[in-house]
């Protein structure tokens, strides 16, 4: 089990879960789904000391009122690395966390040792708009996020056909998470128009991992990341949607660890 603690970063509480042995690794989570310690983190923790902070406004992390855009989140994580005494770390970022990871790697290349982007938000392609994260019903979300519609989480979302079906604590966490995500990514919608050209600044060896059946951020975005980050590779996971950490944790851990262990 990971250790749970609250770390102070520039006046904000950060809920930090830390577990495992080995060199440090920073895991940046998606819009809520993997904010808690899951199988993916256990698997990564066999080889790394995994740090799993909750973004400002997520879980018990506070300080969303200090966040007015992606730049504030980037600085927040650079500050957190300072608090943890980490100079440069490998970073795994999924979805929303992948966007943050890509920004850190572009703006502070010296702080990112190796980079794994998993179905990352952050870019925009007119011909393939990112799906509607905020205005969708839970069943619509299940359809966008999951390849396997029988996955327990997909089933749970699909069953929420009216507000009466949504447990209050789940609804509360979800509302908080979406509010925090909206502070950063309402408009421009879940991307930073400057990021794509800045990706040339990334110096970390980079692996892009994508669920082939991602209907929120389609595979063309993975290809775009691969094309714009110097030397990046792309690993496509078949029979997998937007959340490999949830839907295919073993495969994701395998490709990520294989890449992270290269020197």
């Amino acid at each position, binding site marked *: 089990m990971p250790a749970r603690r609250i770390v102070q970063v520039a006046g904000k509480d950060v809920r930090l879960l830390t577990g495992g042995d080995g060199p440090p690794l920073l895991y940046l989570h998606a819009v809520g789904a993997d904010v808690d310690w899951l199988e993916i983190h256990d698997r990564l923790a066999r080889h790394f000391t995994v740090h799993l902070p909750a973004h400002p406004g997520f879980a018990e992390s506070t300080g969303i009122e200090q966040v007015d855009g992606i730049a504030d989140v980037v600085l927040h994580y650079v500050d957190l690395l300072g608090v943890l005494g980490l100079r440069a770390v490998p970073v795994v970022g999924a979805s929303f966390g992948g966007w943050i990871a890509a920004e850190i790697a572009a703006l502070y290349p010296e702080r990112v040792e190796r980079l794994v982007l998993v179905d990352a938000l952050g870019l925009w392609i007119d011909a393939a708009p990112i799906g509607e994260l905020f205005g969708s019903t839970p069943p619509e979300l299940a359809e966008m996020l999951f390849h396997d519609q029988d996955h327990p989480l997909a089933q749970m979302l699909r069953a929420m056909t009216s*507000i009466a079906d949504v447990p*209050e604590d789940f*609804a509360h966490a979800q*509302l908080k998470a979406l*509010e925090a995500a909206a*502070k950063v990514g*309402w408009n421009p919608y879940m991307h930073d128009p400057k990021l794509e050209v800045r990706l040339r600044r990334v110096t970390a060896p980079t692996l892009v991992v994508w669920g082939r059946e991602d209907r929120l951020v389609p595979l063309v975005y993975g290809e775009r990341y691969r094309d714009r980050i110097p030397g990046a590779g792309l690993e496509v996971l078949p029979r997998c949607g937007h959340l490999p950490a949830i839907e295919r944790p073993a495969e994701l851990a395998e490709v990520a660890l294989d890449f992270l262990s290269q020197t």
Partner: protein
Amino acid sequence: MFHLMPWPHLPESYAGPAWVKCPNAFYDGRRGHALYNRYLDELVRAEALGFDGVCVNEHHANAYGNMPSPNLIASILARQTERMRIAVVGNALPLYNPPLRVAEEYAMIDCISGGRLIAGMVVGGGPEYYSNGINPAEARERFSEALDLIVRCWTEPGPFVHTGKHYKLRYVNPWPTPVQKPHPPIWIPGAGSYETMDFVARRRWAYMGIPYFHKRIFKRNFDYFREACAKEGYAASPEQMGWLVPVYVAETDARARAEFEPHLWYFARKLLPGINVSPPGYTSPRSALKMLGAFGDFMLNVGSWDEIVDGAYAIVGSPATVRTQMAEMIHWLGVGNVLTLLQLGTLPADLTRRNMELFATEVLPHLRNEIGPRAAAS
């Protein structure tokens, strides 16, 4: 009298939302020409019938209410009427950048009308944040800053500097300024979020309850508002609270229902779907859960006429029935303003005219006499 200026021509077969994504191919400018002029006639007529005022409001990208700029309508009314109040409830402040535009246009309406404007200020409906791109997670901050700035525009000599989080203006010096001093009355409509009620209580302005909820939701919200005022150290006056409700009067109860019911269902089933969108951060999670919890008590989810009557979603009947029910509700809710929707959904011109006449002659004087002259505003 409140008017939404709804679009009554959605196809029978259309079952989608009336908001955000409702295809605007359903709009027809030639029909719009006839409709705007008919609706304006209805509002202008309210003065001759003895209403204290009329209310219009702002909505975007929808079939429910076709006044993306209620100020255009209000300025026509300012010119075409002479006595009654014109309440714009309101302008969605976060959608204006800079919000000086609201201070300017409201001052124009107040000047043209000779000081008859009631200045409504709203955060804007949830769907509006999808239609306009403004970040809903900033909505409350923007609203609060814009409102302070507008009041300052009306109470402090310009030019002055405004340096806020969202608006930075070196020379604030709007021309014109309003007739009414220190400024036009401010009304804030709300659907029951704690933040809005606390805010209005703190400023000692007036809170207008948004309709289409079961009467117990109104009661709960006005009770909360009175408590919020008490926490601020004063007793809420009835004029600080407004009850907005659809009303239909005909010669008998049976006739009223027969004439009104199909138009009410068009409204509830065609124009309300999609109105309940609540974008992230638009209210606190605590308020959002409360409002979602009230959703079962929202007209969109009401299935039968009996529920409409029992929940007082609309007051429908003979003059005697409407008089009695409205008097009971006014006393029970403790409100000093009643905003009546006398046109709803597809209710056609002839029935709207008769409804207005019967309400004005058979109900309005009674409410004035029984409840006091201030209780029947609008």
